[in-house]
């Protein structure tokens, strides 16, 4: 999933301080699963804004709405009769959401309510960890099913580096050295010899370095 975290409320109220009618817009996709942008979080943020209104004596009107997804145009259409009623929209979807809303409703003032962090998963309740860097050319099968691009601080294709100690990365003791884990796993699988083989430098043209990306699947295009 795409993992995000809520922006500080202080930052949000600064964004919308000049508006009276504010819509808090949630998404039932990834941000619901990572407990930052679903209907429940819409309720919490909307309530916090109303309390801010009470505190500052503002006559705020805060609406709440949660879309099935904010990354598909058909769901964005649902806002047709809603967006116009508000002076500002705080989208608490990932960074895709506020852009889709802005593109579809050009006159709307749209603000991001969360900071999008990474693609990853929940390793424990309330704890998320990065797993994919979206490089566009998946290589995890070379490394025991683990990704050194996303999980090695240096994205090394041939590791570990000299900064690995006791299974931890030199940048921080809390960061796992994924190369240590890869070596252990490949050893357990009897495939350590595969790591001896030099992996050539990765082409980053399929990653973000190649510029903004898009994808067309002709069989789906109408």
């Amino acid at each position: 999933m795409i993992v995000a975290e809520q922006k500080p409320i202080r930052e949000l109220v600064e964004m919308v301080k000049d508006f009276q009618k504010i819509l808090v817009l949630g998404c039932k996709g990834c941000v619901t699963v990572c407990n930052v942008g679903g209907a429940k979080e819409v309720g919490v943020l909307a309530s916090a804004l109303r309390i801010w209104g009470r505190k500052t004596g503002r006559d705020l009107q805060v609406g709440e709405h949660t879309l099935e997804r904010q990354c598909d145009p058909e769901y964005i259409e649902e806002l047709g009769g809603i967006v116009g009623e508000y002076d500002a929209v705080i989208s608490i979807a990932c960074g895709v959401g506020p852009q889709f809303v802005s593109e579809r409703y050009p006159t709307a003032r749209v603000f991001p309510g969360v900071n999008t962090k990474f693609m990853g998963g929940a390793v424990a309740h309330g704890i998320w960890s990065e797993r994919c860097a979206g490089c566009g050319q998946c290589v995890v099968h070379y490394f025991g099913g683990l990704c050194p691009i996303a999980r090695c601080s240096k994205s090394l294709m041939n590791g570990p580096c000299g900064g690995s100690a006791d299974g931890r990365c030199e940048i921080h003791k809390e960061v796992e050295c994924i190369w240590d884990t890869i070596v252990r796993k490949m050893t357990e699988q009897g495939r350590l010899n595969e790591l001896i083989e030099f992996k050539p430098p990765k082409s980053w043209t399929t990653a973000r370095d190649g510029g903004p990306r898009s994808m067309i699947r002709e069989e789906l295009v109408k």
Partner: protein
Amino acid sequence: MSEFKPRILAFYCANCASSAANVSESMSLGVPAGVKMVQVPCTGRIETLHLLKPFEEGADGVYVAGCQEDSCRYMSGILKAEKRVAQVKRILEELDIEPGRIEAFKLSAGKGFRFAEIASEMMKRVQELGPISGG
């Protein structure tokens, strides 16, 4: 200017805190006027939004009274409630509202005096903080 009469919402669990409330009642110890009591099956069910809504609707303070950690009927109810209270404290701070307006308390079933004392403590605290609305 009229005297500030705080409005406080108190959530208390149906187990330890409720028993403490009964003991308190049998001792003829009341809670101050202005404290509205809401019994819940377990404080672990209280969501962040439940704690925020009273502030939105005009409350000046909120507190949760639940079991002690080692005697919670549902094992971890009060611990969950404490984390949510801490979250609301952070939200209030970001809104420049005193975090002391919300608190979690742990008490055992026989603590009737403490049950009433908590209500008075919170009333005194919120009275000193004054109303939320700045205008």
